[in-house]
């Protein structure tokens, strides 16, 4: 066990996991917010695009998206982000994690919009704000504060789902946690101790997110 800890860069693998999670969290928040705006917008086509995005992406397994990105988009369609294969897989993993979790961010924000009392939107309209203005000044700030709990759940899921990147990052130069676990298990044989190290690593990563989201959602809840 001591040898394994010395021979394999487990902390480095978790650092890749954290990078993937952080980059994809930003990406999915951006795409998810745009889609949420589409879904509540007055333009019917935009609403349809938003709904279509959510229904398609949410019902596709992340594994399928990952495999498709590298074997389909990168290799066959030649949409390479980097000529270095490990880097290419890394950025495709970030893109697919962002695209996938954006659907859940969008739904979380929409549930946040639903927590806003009707009077708020009516008030915004009655003082003459346009839809864009009322979205920016009244609706979205409250929606984000009302959506912290589901957004926290999505972030936890995202941290755990970074392991699916192992499908394409595998045992490359920069494996993330699951790829590293697979590498160690295949080379050194299965050891419950090693598995527990990785499992506890994820508990350590996700526990603060859950606790933080709960306390933030309480502290920032809009007093009504």
């Amino acid at each position: 066990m001591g040898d394994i800890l010395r021979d394999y860069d487990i902390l480095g693998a978790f650092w890749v996991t954290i990078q993937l999670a952080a980059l994809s969290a930003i990406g999915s928040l951006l795409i998810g917010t745009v889609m949420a705006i589409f879904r509540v917008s007055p333009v019917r086509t935009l609403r349809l695009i938003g709904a279509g995005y959510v229904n398609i992406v949410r019902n596709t397994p992340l594994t399928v998206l990952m495999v498709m990105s590298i074997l389909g988009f990168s290799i066959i369609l030649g949409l390479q982000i980097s000529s270095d294969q490990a880097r290419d897989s890394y950025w495709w993993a970030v893109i697919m994690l962002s695209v996938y979790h954006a659907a859940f961010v969008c739904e979380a924000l929409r549930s946040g919009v639903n927590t806003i009392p009707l009077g708020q939107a009516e008030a915004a309209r009655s003082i003459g704000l346009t839809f864009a203005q009322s979205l920016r000044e009244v609706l979205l700030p409250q929606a984000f504060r009302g959506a912290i709990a589901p957004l926290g759940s999505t972030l936890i899921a995202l941290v755990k789902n970074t392991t699916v990147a192992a499908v394409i990052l595998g045992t490359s130069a920069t494996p993330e946690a699951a790829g590293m676990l697979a590498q160690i298990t295949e080379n050194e044989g299965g050891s419950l101790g090693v598995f527990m190290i990785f499992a506890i690593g994820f508990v350590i990563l996700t526990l603060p997110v859950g606790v933080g989201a709960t306390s933030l959602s309480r502290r920032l809840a809009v007093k009504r």
Partner: protein
Amino acid sequence: MTAAHDVLFDAPGPRARRRHAVMTVVGVVLMVAGIWVVLRRMADANQLEAYQWKGFVTEPVWWTSYLLPGLWGTIKAAALSVVFAGIFGVVFGMGRLSHVPAIRWVCGVVVEFFRAVPVLMMMLFLYFGYFATSGVVSPSTAPLVSVVIALTLYNGSVIAELVRSGVHGLPKGQSEAGLSIGLTPGQTLRSIQLPQALTAMLPALVGQLVVVLKDSALGYVITYPELLSAAKTLGSAYSNTLPAYIVAALLFIVLNYLLTRLAGYVEGWLKRRGTGGGRIVTEAPAQGEAEAATT
């Protein structure tokens, strides 16, 4: 939804209607342009040749030798996992509600642990670390066993939480009534609270099926012959990799969409039925989390 929209913005006047028309056109143009770029790239990469697509209609063997066995693998793993996860969930959910602190504590730790550990890691460890090498099960069933155990542990823990929140969501009078007619706490839980909680959970349980179905695609990594692996084999056999993946993704989407609709239908049915379940279903956070935590 329409009701919410009516409040978010005014009925459009002439100027707003013009603006909306412009945005509609811009949206459609962007979408069509996006699709066109993708199709162009696919055409450039020779992924739009007729022979790569026609077989899905004209060649029954594409389905009988590749896609249908794959689909069956996916459904088999998902169905087994759901059954076991249901049992696991009810047992550990009841454990978390036990009045014996030690049982409550142990079940709590088990449930929280398996909810925090990524399914893929469990699968990789079970397969490469144990079943592939130990010879406990035959090499051909080792991947299935690993997939089912990993999915059971994770989804069972999620269901255990659903059971717990379902029972907590019941009106307090239910357990008080049970205790006051002389039932023990265990009897009250089993014969009064649990049946009501399970009915209320039904939509969330069907929703969990979507999660299991999607997660079963992870079996791809440990060589379990499910839909995604089948698509890969089909793709290399007939050199139509991308079309095969797209069709596999479509199958997943249709299946999951139908399951989501079924969950909505069950929810509506429970509401219409009116008794017991309907009003307890509102444990939105638990369901949201279950939904978010999918691969």
